[in-house]
């Protein structure tokens, strides 16, 4: 029971730090990431909702992925989420 509780705590802490990384993104990138990965919306639907083109959303997601990856690689968060 203690091991399960510990794993839950670790997972919660890991999610919290990922959320922090997402929250630190610029506004447009953060919106695109949340709608695409968390809400599982299609790029075309996100573009329609935000009133921009699909290319703009792809560019925002590209930059967001690069920022998150660089942040993950620079910190120990990458090691944590790879477990």
């Amino acid at each position, binding site marked *: 029971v203690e091991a399960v509780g510990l794993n839950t705590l670790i997972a919660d802490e890991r*999610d919290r730090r990922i959320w922090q990384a*997402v929250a630190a993104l610029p506004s447009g990138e953060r919106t695109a990431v949340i709608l695409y*990965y*968390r809400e599982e919306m299609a790029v075309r639907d996100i573009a329609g909702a935000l009133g921009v083109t699909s290319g703009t959303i*792809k560019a925002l*997601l590209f930059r967001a992925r690069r920022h998150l990856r660089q942040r993950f690689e620079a910190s120990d968060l990458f090691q944590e989420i*790879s477990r």
Partner: protein
Amino acid sequence: MNCRHVIGLIDAGPFADYPRQHLDAAWAHARQCHTCGPALEAAAAMTDRLRALPRPALPRDLTAGVLAHTAAIEGARAARPAPVFEAKRRVVMPDVSGWAMVAGAVVATVAITASGDVAPGDIVSLDRVAVRSVVAIPAMTPGLLTLAAGLALYAFGLFASLSTQRPPYSSTSP
């Protein structure tokens, strides 16, 4: 294919618009490269974690809060006195156009028939122009004034009736 290009493809992820063979070659390069390999692993792990992030639970009192807020808005709306729209006053003028036309025609006819100074077919000299009269025209000033007044009254009635008609494309609906 250099590392910068491969890392760009890694960051683009599913949006990398390249042929399948090109992407396969890039991933093969990344798996053997000490620079691109960690980037590929980080991107894959990050994508998986982003997709697996739990949705935050809604606050327990969210429903009660929304209902209370809605009730407050409805209460404020019900307590507010209904706006009173005053009808715009319109000055309704009696339609005299028909009577004006009839009266003008009668006056003009009386002026023409009563005078009879110039009969139809007579030559009338107006300054330097001589024209043949079609109708009888009074030659005296009172007769001419009466004729002019009758024609003016007739014209007033005619244009007044035209101006009160609505154009066919106008609509009274808002």
